[in-house]
């Protein structure tokens, strides 16, 4: 980290540099919230400029290209994002990234999605793939895969990550610890000398056809998926890994969604993320962390639609006439109401995550101490062996138990789910209403709004359907019933069921 130069001059004007500048700005209250707000404004402005200049102008073109060939993928736009530090957004600073937590990530995603949700999803899915490493992976990935990804980003040869839980017969099932017990999980991992062999098919994997690394969840025992679910870091260059069908989607097409096939893929034991059997808890933590940004994605889609509509109303003669109609004025005001409410919901959820629910672990003195250790020391073989040991994995779980609990996590998951469902509904309503106002106008504004409307629908579906998300709101906020999210404290219990 020191070598990467936290105090290096900002030659690129990148988001990373912007964030660093923000953090050095005066903080009158000294509170995290105040500091966070100051950062977020600068981060939002910068992300919006990037989205306006790089994403929006290419949105229709990449959408059309992927409509003709769903497997089409534009690495050039990824390189643009890499130059902005978008691939290492959530990578901890000691590993060379920006160390963004949920709020910062969400704000960036909102602005990117106002430009093009499909392109933004490439970066969002990458962050989602990293999330298990950050939440339950301990310190080992800092100098492993995360450092590699940061180095690739800086070389201008970016590599992507993906997150794989959904299966052909198990969608909602694998996002709920109760449903998964009765679900039809068909993937499985079994132990072999030195690691595990993974088999089965995952479906609807964003970045699935282009990712270099995938965090994939599979049970060690199909008959007890809740107790034995395990997260693996899979190298997609491994023998037996294959990309199946790339889906012909309605929207968010610039980011390919693929079926991925594991045919006895070997994963070394050191690439188990967290402890074997802790996968369901990890999944729930990842969802808590990712749903607020999905709310932001949806908010960005709505905001993007409103901006395009306003521009058309103000600049096109046909629009100017409509702008004087009171119905249109009221509709614009309604959009503003909805967008602000959705933004407030995702920011509130993200701040809860960054504060009590998950941020405590990242601010824990032990983690700060580890951050201060020079990378060359952490990368020494002895240190690496220690960081990858079963004991280190136990320490990560103990740290989580010391800094959070199931009550806080359940509440945070619920707040995040609320933000996701709220934002998604707003995105559908606002894009639909914007399209209604423009009608069948032949100009590009209709095509742009139609695309955003198609894009918006996915936000009601991914990261759990809105219905599942509302059930989390019921369980976490309306009628609190803490879920068992944290992995069990004692590894012995886990070992017993997985053996």
């Amino acid at each position, binding site marked *: 980290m020191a070598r990467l130069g936290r105090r290096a001059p900002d030659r690129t004007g990148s988001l990373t540099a912007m964030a660093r500048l923000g953090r050095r700005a005066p903080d009158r209250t000294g509170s995290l919230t105040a500091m966070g707000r100051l950062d977020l404004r600068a981060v939002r402005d910068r992300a919006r400029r990037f989205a306006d200049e790089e994403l929006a102008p290419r949105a*229709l073109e990449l959408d*059309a290209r992927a409509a003709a060939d769903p497997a089409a993928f534009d690495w050039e736009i990824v390189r643009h994002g890499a130059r902005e530090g978008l691939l290492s957004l959530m990578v901890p600073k000691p590993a060379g990234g920006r160390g963004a937590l949920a709020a910062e990530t969400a704000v960036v995603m909102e602005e990117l999605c106002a430009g093009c949700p499909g392109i933004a999803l490439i970066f969002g899915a990458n962050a989602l793939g990293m999330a298990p490493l950050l939440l339950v992976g301990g310190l080992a990935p800092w100098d492993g895969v995360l450092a590699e990804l940061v180095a690739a980003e800086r070389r201008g040869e970016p590599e992507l990550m993906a997150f794989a839980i*959904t299966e052909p*017969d*198990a*969608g*909602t*099932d694998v996002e*709920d610890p*109760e*449903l998964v017990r*009765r*679900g*039809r999980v068909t993937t499985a991992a079994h132990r072999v000398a030195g690691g595990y062999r993974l088999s089965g098919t995952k*479906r*609807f994997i964003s970045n699935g056809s282009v990712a270099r690394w995938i965090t994939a969840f599979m049970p060690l025992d199909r008959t007890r998926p809740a107790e034995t679910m395990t997260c693996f870091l899979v190298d997609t260059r491994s023998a037996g890994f294959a990309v199946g069908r790339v*889906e*012909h*989607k*309605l*929207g968010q097409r610039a980011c390919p969604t693929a079926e991925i096939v594991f045919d006895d893929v070997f994963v070394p034991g050191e690439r188990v993320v967290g402890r074997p059997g802790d996968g369901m808890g990890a999944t729930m933590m990842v969802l808590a962390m990712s749903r607020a940004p999905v709310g932001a994605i949806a908010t960005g889609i709505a905001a993007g639609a409103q901006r395009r509509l306003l521009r058309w109303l103000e600049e096109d003669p*046909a629009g100017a006439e409509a702008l004087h109609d009171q*119905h249109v004025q009221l*509709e614009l005001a309604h959009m503003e109401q909805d967008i602000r409410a959705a933004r407030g919901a995702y920011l509130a959820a993200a701040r809860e995550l960054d504060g009590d629910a998950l941020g405590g672990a990242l601010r824990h003195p032990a983690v700060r101490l580890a951050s201060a250790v020079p990378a060359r020391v952490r990368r020494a073989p002895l240190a690496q062996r220690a960081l990858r040991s079963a004991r280190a994995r136990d320490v990560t779980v103990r740290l989580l138990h010391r800094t959070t609990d199931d009550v806080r996590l359940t509440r945070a998951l619920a707040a995040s789910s609320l933000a996701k469902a709220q934002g998604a509904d707003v995105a*559908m309503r606002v894009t*639909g209403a914007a*399209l*209604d*106002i423009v*009608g*069948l*106008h*032949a*100009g590009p504004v*209709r*095509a742009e709004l*139609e695309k955003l*409307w*198609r894009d918006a*629908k*996915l936000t*009601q*579906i*991914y990261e759990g*359907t*809105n*219905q*599942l998300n*509302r*059930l989390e709101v019921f369980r976490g906020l309306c009628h609190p019933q803490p879920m068992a999210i944290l992995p069990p404290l004692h590894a012995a219990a886990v070992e017993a069921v997985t053996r």
Partner: protein
Amino acid sequence: MTLTVTAGDRALLVDAARGFARRELLPAAARLDHGDREATHRCWESVCALGLDRALLDEEAGGAGLPPGVWLALIEELAAAEAGLALAVALHALALRALPPDAAAAVPTGARWALVPAPAARDHIVLGAAGADGLVLGGHAGGPPAVLEPGGDWSVTADPRQLGLRAAPAGVVRSDGAVPPAGVVRGDDAIPPAGVVRGDDAIPPAGVVRDDDAVPPAPAPAVEALLYAATAAVAIGIVRRAYELATDYAATRHQGGGPIGHYGAVRQMLAAMAVRLEARPRMPAEETDLRAALAAKVAASHAAGRTTIDAVQVFGGSGYIADSGVEKLMRDAKYCELYPEPNWRARARLLSAA
């Protein structure tokens, strides 16, 4: 002359249309959606072979003279299989109905014409216009239509980004002749009281635009209300298909150890679809009742929009994929909300419509 059709005859016709739609159109729906020319041509030929293209025309114009209510029921049946083609059939029938009987009779079987609705504004895409052999412009109540005949100085620039109802291919209409260059008719408040195509005063007052202007003014058939009613029928067909797909999927897709149709969240969505079908909007009793037709179009297309969005939701991720056939319904339904004009404009007109 319009036929008198008994309830029994009507049921027979509707059953026949349903059988045809299931047999011929449903299997081709995905190809029609992708603009497959061969599939489109074959389906159009089948429609013509059954006489569905001329079902609305009076006998003297070479048609079957079906009452509009029965014709709308047939359009709904076609739409329950393939909404875009159903709309194309409706636009063709209405275009011919707007022509003088002898002109309509002269349109060869197999040709596809389209009605360009009065509210279509300049620089808007016009459904059914791309690839059409002839266009009839305007056709609002009380006003004479203008006609763009085959071989005339007009063209349609197809819209490659058409979102829905793709079997009624859309484009921007341009004419180098008598019709305004930017396209066609002005909509909403710009519609002249008499309902004539407006714009640049370049269109002769006569109903039919021809090079020699020799054709006398056409009668003023009231097709505008039927156009809205037909759009409503298409929307109801979409609701039916979406409900059918969603209920089938909910019965067979298992999550949490049972069919998803057993879960309250899904049951409520399915029930809401059933309610929309049971409380389907009333079609206008009179073919000239524009107010009722506008109301039917707004209500039916709104129902289609809600139902198809929920149907995709029932399918989850699978519904977002083209194979499911359900995302297509969502796109088709959205265009029913926007066509012939967006619902908010149709609502605004409703209060002043006779």
